């Protein structure tokens, strides 16, 4: 086992560099994906017929196709219509668009779970639809969505590994490179596995604490 330990010590820095790239992709696609997802969710709840149709179509498309296919399409397909993207950007976009579709449904559920009575009361005060959404519905919906949003965030951190297929030098890719140069593939991937376990655990803890702090508000009778 000391063989593994020495191996680990030698190659941890390389894997660490890869982890930074992983986190970079993750941060970008979570940012874009959450914003887009929120708009899609709002569109599904409040939009007119065409907005609803567009949002639904988008969601069905991205939830019904594999992430791998999406990333290959974005990276290899888009250049054919003159959109050239670097691997990192392509990966972030593909993953972001994917997560937006899933998050849209979570937002939709959370928005709809806000009791209709509160919406009525807000309207009865004279608030416009926009005011109702931004002052009454969203503040509560965003709190309610945190558990599902957290799951999605953790999932995405794991799926970021798919970016290695298009050559992004993230954690998986570095592990593979180490494998090629040392022929100790199993050890390299095992190390990577442990790093993934670690970062997802840390993320899960942080999000759990966020949930506890923000959702302190009990629901009204």
């Amino acid at each position, binding site marked *: 086992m000391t063989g593994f330990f020495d191996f680990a010590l030698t190659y941890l820095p390389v894997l660490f560099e890869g982890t930074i790239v992983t986190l970079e992709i993750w941060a970008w696609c979570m940012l874009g994906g959450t914003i887009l997802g929120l708009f899609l969710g709002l569109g599904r709840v409040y939009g007119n017929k065409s907005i609803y149709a567009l949002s639904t179509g988008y969601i069905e498309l991205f939830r019904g*196709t594999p992430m791998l296919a999406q990333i290959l399409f974005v990276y290899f397909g888009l250049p*054919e219509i003159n959109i050239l993207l670097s691997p990192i950007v392509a990966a972030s976009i593909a993953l972001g668009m994917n997560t937006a579709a899933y998050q849209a449904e979570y937002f939709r559920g959370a928005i709809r779970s806000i009791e209709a009575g509160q919406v009525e009361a807000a309207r009865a005060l004279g608030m416009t639809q926009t005011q109702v959404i931004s002052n009454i519905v969203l503040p509560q919906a965003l709190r309610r969505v945190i558990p599902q949003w957290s799951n999605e965030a953790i999932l995405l951190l794991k799926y970021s590994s798919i970016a290695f297929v298009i050559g992004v030098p993230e954690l998986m890719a570095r*592990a593979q490179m180490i494998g090629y140069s040392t022929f100790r593939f199993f050890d390299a991937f095992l190390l990577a596995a442990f790093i993934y376990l670690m970062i997802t655990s840390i993320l899960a803890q942080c999000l759990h604490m966020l949930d506890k702090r923000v959702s302190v508000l009990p629901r009204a009778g």
Partner: protein
Amino acid sequence: MIYLTLLKELPYLLEGVLVALELLLAFMSLGFIIGMVLSVTEVYGNRWSSTLAFMIERFFRGVPAIVLIFLFYYGLSDIYNISPFAAATLALGFRTGAYQSQIFKGAIQAVGPGQMMAARAIGMGKIQAIWSIILPQALRFGIGPWSNEFASELKDTSLAYTIGVVELLRRAKYIVSYTYGNALIVYGFCAILYLILVRLGNTVLYRIEKKLQIPGFETRKEGGLG
């Protein structure tokens, strides 16, 4: 031009779909068994076995699918000349087993402690009670989430691409390489194939779900007699 090629290669691509479905069936069945074992152990086992089950489940849920696939492929290659298909089956099987164990655990807990108490009260042994009383009810609670898992795994069969399993996406890649381009259309076409598959899968599972429902049962979501 590319459309003609696509038409010509349709059988080739559809074979890829078949490979994907084969893979899906193989690892979902493996996962079902693993999931059952893990969940029953976690809920009913003694401290050591349930902790072990918990750790196994945590590992296979926390490590990305691709990493698992590579681990199994390279790990087992040292011992035995394993095919990419088999490695993918094992890796994805353990992974879905971990996810399914969560579903089954939730379903078992939804059945409620009252049922187990009643079964023991009439003299059934623990295993018998689990087999004849708890599991039949739990399985029906679990159908909904299980169908979601199934649909999700259908898409994850594409991950086998990474170790060279010649399923749909890899075949698409070959077509793209030898026609020097047209990635947009070829991958787009594959996406549509997946869409159809997922839709079909969901419809079938929905019908099965409806058929297996016990009247009035679904309204009790948690806690049995309590």
